[in-house]
């Protein structure tokens, strides 16, 4: 980047009142980065453990069912659904639709609510049925 750091930047983040669309936008990147690092590592560990034998697999499930593993798993579940719903919203916006202020705000809020509901349902299922 050819930028002289002694020159001021125009305020592009601080001058806007925060809205749900801005939160969903940055959450898409945060959840994506989280899934791509922590999620991918856990996924690879699961498969490598399964391919390495029963002891390795037991070691993995031991961690996965510990309190730390469950905290990470709940976080990943939420990140997955938030990124998924936000991604689906992006497809609509890529098609040029959903930019009207109220529509845009409504679906931004819906991705936030939807990811929380789906995470809650998933863990309710895991705790009660499994």
């Amino acid at each position, binding site marked *: *980047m*050819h*930028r002289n750091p002694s020159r001021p930047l125009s305020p592009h983040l601080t001058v806007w009142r925060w809205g749900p669309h801005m939160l969903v936008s940055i959450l898409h*990147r945060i959840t*994506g*980065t989280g*899934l*791509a690092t922590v999620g*991918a*590592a856990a*996924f*690879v560990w699961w*498969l*490598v453990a*399964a*391919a*390495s*034998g*029963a*002891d390795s*697999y*037991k070691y993995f*499930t031991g961690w996965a069912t510990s309190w730390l593993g469950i905290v990470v798993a709940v976080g990943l579940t939420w990140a*997955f659904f938030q990124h*998924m719903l936000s*991604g*689906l919203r992006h*497809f609509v916006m*890529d098609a040029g639709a959903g930019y009207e202020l109220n529509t845009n705000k409504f679906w931004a809020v819906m991705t936030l609510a939807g990811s929380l509901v789906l995470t809650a349902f998933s863990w309710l*299922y895991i705790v009660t049925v*499994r």
Partner: protein
Amino acid sequence: MTTETPIARVRGLGSAQEGAHHWLLERLTSIATFLLFIWLIVSLVRLPSLDYRGVTEWLATPLAAVPMLLLIVSTFWHLKLGLQVVIEDYVHDEGNHFFSILLVNFLTILGAAFAIFSVLKIALGGAPNV
């Protein structure tokens, strides 16, 4: 040293005609990843047990191993494209930028290779049965 400004150097050259390629691949891999994760979630919910025997016997069947291999390729491709965009937007120092992109490429391929090998080992009967 040239007295040309960066904008003067590129003005009139037109676009490189490949600006949309990365963007489009990110969308295509997101559709594939979305569909394959729906498959994975439905499959895991339908599995009677997620213990060592349950998972390895399931992954040994073609109907599980092949979609799983596709899921690995699609997911790691997508997360590589996504992490690249995040780095391009936030890592401005040229050295750090180069190193980060290199690291993402290496780690993505490393992770995908471990995952693919593990699935193949289980699917082709190499996993020790205990």
